[in-house]
């Protein structure tokens, strides 16, 4: 598939190109082409041959689209960001020691390869390939997180790498179990054939496989209690990477779980998967809520809000019915919003040189445009209508109530309230009030338009989703929902 090869090759090329400018242009170009190809795929909907290892069903297409759009925005942002990083010496924000950044070719290259891997995840029709691709994303994003070469980012990278590898190992075990489940009827891990005769799978083995795969991809997706790597990685990596991680990567891991859930649903184990998904969804919500309430670092706060939304997604899929649509809509909106927020947080970091919430005051005074975006992002991420997130949350709640999961619904609402209160306090403290006077040495940071625009566009899209749902998107999402619920191709 062209979609994968282009970033792959260009990524390899990026390692070699020495000149910054052409490398950045290459980055932009690849992002553009990728987006164009994705749109093309949207329009012509390539049909999938059974047994083919790669192919785009509407579920994959949905996540591919999100990833591609996100990467476009990220690359626009990244170009300026890299220039910025070049200019000021890497002076550590909190502890104040000097460090030097990763060589830019490595960064850009890994960025592109990362895109290739994610594309592979969304496009793969074979659980083995899916697994390999997810593992690849882990390995390729590690250098991205380790962009600032100092010990805290190293620690974050190390934890990320180890925990995710363990998780991925579990996922591998799960894959093998799945194979064992299909052994009697001689099925491979090819999704199509699995789905078409899922009933012949061995139930016990299938359950075990789901458990292992859930733990594995759940680790990657950041469901509590497997989330432990996530805040560290998000807070220590540069804004672009954090945006991609929580906007695109988490979705890819989620896609992994969805694929298996598909198989289970086809095998008539929907109830079994549902319980687990709901339980861990609520668990993640709770964890995120409490950690946000006690948060001191705004990038970590954003990371925990990602955990919260992952919980919401898993809850939604677990509830089934209309909630699945809500969950998918929420996934799309959350990716856009959270990416935008991470972009903005990068600007705040550049302006204030700290990630401590207590140090940041009076954004509205010092960097008004950034502040407006920041508050907008807050209202969107907490599901204030009109926004896609609001619709998603509402649909999930509706499904929970009509499905008589009253306890789940109550917990869901309670933790949403806690999250709202916690984030509200943080955002207000940061945005309002008098800005502390700049010490004479540093010049006030001026956010360039190019770094504001991506976030603004993403937010606009999310608001639009709350007001008007384009027909094609509706088709894709409902198609994906049917895939998950019905489990038939």
């Amino acid at each position, binding site marked *: 598939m062209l979609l994968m090869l282009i970033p792959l090759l260009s990524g390899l090329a990026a390692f070699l190109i020495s000149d910054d400018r052409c490398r950045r242009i290459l980055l932009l170009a690849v992002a553009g082409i990728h987006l164009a190809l994705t749109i093309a795929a949207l329009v012509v909907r390539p049909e999938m041959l059974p047994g083919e290892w790669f192919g785009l069903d509407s579920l994959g297409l949905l996540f591919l689209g999100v990833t591609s759009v996100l990467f476009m925005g990220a690359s626009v942002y990244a170009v300026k960001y890299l220039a910025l990083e070049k200019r000021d010496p890497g002076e550590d924000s909190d502890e104040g020691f000097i460090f030097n950044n990763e060589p830019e070719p490595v960064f850009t290259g890994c960025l592109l390869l990362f895109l290739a891997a994610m594309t592979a995840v969304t496009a793969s029709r*074979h659980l*083995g*390939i899916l*697994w*390999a691709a997810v*593992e*690849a994303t882990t*390995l390729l994003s*590690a250098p991205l997180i*380790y962009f600032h070469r*100092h*010990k*805290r980012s*190293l*620690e*974050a*990278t*190390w*934890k990320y*790498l*180890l925990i995710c*590898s*363990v998780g*991925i*190992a579990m996922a*591998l*075990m799960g894959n*093998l*179990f799945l*194979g*064992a489940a299909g*052994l*009697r009827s001689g099925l*491979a*891990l090819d999704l199509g054939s699995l789905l078409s005769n899922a009933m012949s799978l*061995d139930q*016990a*083995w299938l359950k*075990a496989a789901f458990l292992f795969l859930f733990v594995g991809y759940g680790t990657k997706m950041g469901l509590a209690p497997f989330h432990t790597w996530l*805040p*560290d990685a998000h*807070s*220590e990596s540069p804004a672009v990477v954090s945006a991609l991680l929580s906007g695109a990567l988490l979705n890819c891991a989620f896609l992994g779980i969805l694929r298996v859930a598909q198989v289970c649903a086809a095998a008539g184990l929907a109830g079994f998967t549902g319980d687990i998904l709901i339980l861990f969804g609520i668990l993640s919500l709770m964890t995120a809520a409490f*950690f946000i309430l*006690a*948060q*001191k670092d705004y990038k*970590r706060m954003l990371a925990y809000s990602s955990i919260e939304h992952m919980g919401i997604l898993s809850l939604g899929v677990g509830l089934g019915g209309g909630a699945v649509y809500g969950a998918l809509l929420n996934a799309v909106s959350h990716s856009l919003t959270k990416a935008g927020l991470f972009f903005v947080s990068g600007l705040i970091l550049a302006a204030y040189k700290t990630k401590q919430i207590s140090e940041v005051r009076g954004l509205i005074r010092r960097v008004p445009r950034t502040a407006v975006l920041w508050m907008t992002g807050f209202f969107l991420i907490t599901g204030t209508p009109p926004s896609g997130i609001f619709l998603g949350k509402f649909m999930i709640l509706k499904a929970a109530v009509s499905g008589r999961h009253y306890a789940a619904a109550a917990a869901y609402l309670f933790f949403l309230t806690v999250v709202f209160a916690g984030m509200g306090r943080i955002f207000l403290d940061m945005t309002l009030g008098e800005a502390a006077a700049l010490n004479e040495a540093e010049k006030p940071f001026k956010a360039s338009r190019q770094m504001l625009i991506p976030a603004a566009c993403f937010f606009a899209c999310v608001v639009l989703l709350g007001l008007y749902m384009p027909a094609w998107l509706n088709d894709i999402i409902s198609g994906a929902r049917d895939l998950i619920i019905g489990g038939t191709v």
Partner: protein
Amino acid sequence: MTTLAELIIVAVILLNLSLAASGSLATCIRLAAAQGVIAALLPLLAGHGVPSGTIVFCCAVILLKGAIFPWLLTRARVKANVSRDAEPVIGYPASIILCLGAFAASSWLGTRLPLPETARVAWIVPASLSTIFTGFLLLTTRGKAITQVLGYLVIENGIYIFGLALFVEQPLMVEMAILLDVFVAVFVMGITIFHISREFDHIDTAELSQLGDWYPKQSGGEK
């Protein structure tokens, strides 16, 4: 032949125990390597007519696990001039007991997961699962970064014991991809370990615990 295979299983489990018990890093590395090699022999003994592709594949695995990984890790250990001791968080007897418990648990799980008759080797599931749990034991109770890599390797071994025993007939592409991933994984980890050893002049991950959200000093809620 199957008896031989089962002998190997027993050996694997014994290796687990010794991994849990052994104190010195070098020994741990060697033990893990040995386990990998033995695990790789498994498919050769398992079937009657072994396809040539399988042989090649197994040789590759043996080469990788028997030679390259130990070499990488030893090099890392020497480069980062780590002390010999594995410095477990809990005592060796405790680790052994846990390891046995893991074995018991996994054999229970094995009873819950009946293997289809196509698989000819009994005790596959318990062995692999207990190996995995041993890997977890190493990961959670050993202080050093290298031991954590080791634990990860042991987990991989466990997975392999299962995978190789079952899927020798199937197209090896998947397994190749898997293999590649593992290789890169260990490789990257090796690099990171170097970085760690450069940043903090030893590789005790206890030092790697700055990031977190726990501020014991102000654990009182003020609003």
